[in-house]
């Protein structure tokens, strides 16, 4: 089985978000970049499937040269080779179109449920549509039984058992697998695993991020004594007007 895992290269959750150049660009200074946490679940499940029944794992990222350390980390975790599509991931449609171009021939395309920079939650659905194959997200459990994929999918207030045939695209989330931490051997071998850089196909972007803004600063917290909870109720009613 051939598995393709699509990873995003995103600021760590704890990063401070700031913008520069007239609020048109993220201030990358001091930002630590990671494999998207949901993408990490996708990769972990791919590694488990490989251990269970054998598979080859290719990781793919649409991004500039700065994403290569992130891609190498995925190789250290257990991917066999990598593709970097050398383009700025301008919008979900653009990214999906680039992925779809390279995803043909894979049995299973695993992604995260959403990227944590733009939180679109859409690339998997778009890739599925472009390839004419099923896409399911967010998937909490994924098992392969012959050519059938058995999944548990989260829905608002509950979950569903869903089945579909391979080939398939899945957007993963916990607890689909345990995150894998690269070991020394993985890190060493990742240096020599193939990382192929390919040029993007020509796709017109459909949306453009013009500028960014931060939410208004929060006022100071008002502390209320534990002996005076009625004051909290009064304030929620008359001051905050939320009751």
């Amino acid at each position, binding site marked *: 089985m051939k598995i393709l895992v699509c990873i995003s290269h995103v600021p760590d*959750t704890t990063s401070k*978000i700031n913008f520069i150049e007239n609020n048109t660009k993220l201030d990358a200074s001091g930002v630590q970049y990671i494999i998207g*946490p949901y993408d990490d679940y996708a990769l972990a499940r791919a590694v488990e499937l490989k251990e269970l029944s054998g598979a080859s794992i290719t990781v793919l990222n649409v991004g500039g040269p700065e994403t290569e350390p992130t891609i190498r980390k995925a190789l250290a975790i257990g991917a066999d080779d990598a593709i970097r599509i050398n383009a700025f991931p301008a919008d*979900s*449609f653009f990214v*999906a179109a680039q992925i779809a171009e390279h995803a043909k021939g894979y049995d299973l395309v695993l992604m995260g449920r959403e990227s*944590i*920079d*733009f*939180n679109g*939650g*859409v690339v998997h*659905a*778009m890739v599925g*549509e*472009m390839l004419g194959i*099923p*896409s*399911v*997200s967010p998937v*909490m459990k994924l098992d392969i039984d012959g050519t059938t994929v058995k999944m548990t*999918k*989260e*829905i*608002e*207030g*509950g*979950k*569903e*058992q*869903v*089945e*579909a045939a391979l080939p398939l695209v899945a957007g993963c*989330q*916990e607890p689909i697998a345990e995150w894998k931490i690269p070991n020394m051997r993985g890190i060493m071998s990742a240096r020599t695993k193939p990382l192929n850089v390919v040029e993007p196909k020509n796709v017109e*972007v*459909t*949306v*453009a*991020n*013009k*500028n*960014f*803004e*931060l939410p208004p600063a929060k*006022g100071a*917290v*008002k*502390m*209320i004594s*534990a002996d005076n*909870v*009625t004051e*909290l*109720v009064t*304030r*929620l009613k008359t001051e*905050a007007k*939320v*009751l």
Partner: protein
Amino acid sequence: MNTLVFVETSEGKVRKASLEAVAYAHAMGGTTTAVALGKADLSELQAIGKYGASKVIHGSDPRLDNQVIQAYSSVLAKVMQDENADVLILANSSLGTPVAAKVAIKTNASFVSNVTELPNTSSGFMVKRSIYTGKAFAHVEMKNAKKIITIKKNAAELKEVGSNAQVINYTATLNDADFNTKTISSEKATGDILLPEAEIVVSGGRGMKGPEHWGILEALAKALHAATGCSKPVSDMGWRPHHEHVGQTGVKVAPQLYIAVGISGAIQHLAGVNSSKCIVVINKDADAPFFKAADYGIIGDAFEVVPKLTEAILASK
């Protein structure tokens, strides 16, 4: 401008998030048409008119009773064409977002998810969307002639503006390829207020010590007509179901009031609550980071403060 709104139903009832989508479309101006698929109560569909839809198209084919994303997207793309719609609005959800993504490919539309405000059409078509899990916003220009938007909670004010709408039955053309996933079974919490839609959320963390102590949070939630949530370790340990966990890897909520009890306020938890209008934190540790993100704070033991708070709320009614 012709705007189409996809309306989600659950157990025959229209979801509140979808009524907000109707209100959003109405506030944009132009003609608003709603589309509902699968089993739905007629009175519920008619009532969509009150929020600004001039008509409601109902694809009642029983094959649409299961929420099959592929089939829904095929029908919506077709209706968009039939109705000559320029814009499609959906609620951001595990159904709405992937459906929107597929319709966007089928109709060559620009698509933006997580939109938080009405569009600005003074030059081009600009929307504001939430990014970095609520830590920032982007102003995005939608370039294509057709546009698809999924909205976050509170993107539009839910108010009655009209009367019941006419419901038109629609016969969808469906083929086998539209059913490329099969729903085997589904489990859903019934009767509860859905966490993503709740106006008030009472959430508990590891400070609650164990699942057997959730009763006091449930009593508080009941008094407030609130949904219950939790932190990730709480769902990881199986104290509460996974779909109740709030944060970066869980549900992102945007209620009027979020009450956090025994939750430290890790950044990954805050990522799921930072769109709340008002945050109350109850924690016995004065240095808990959550206090910095709160509007009101009480330093104290949850097991003493929560029952007193429930009592005070009931007394104030």
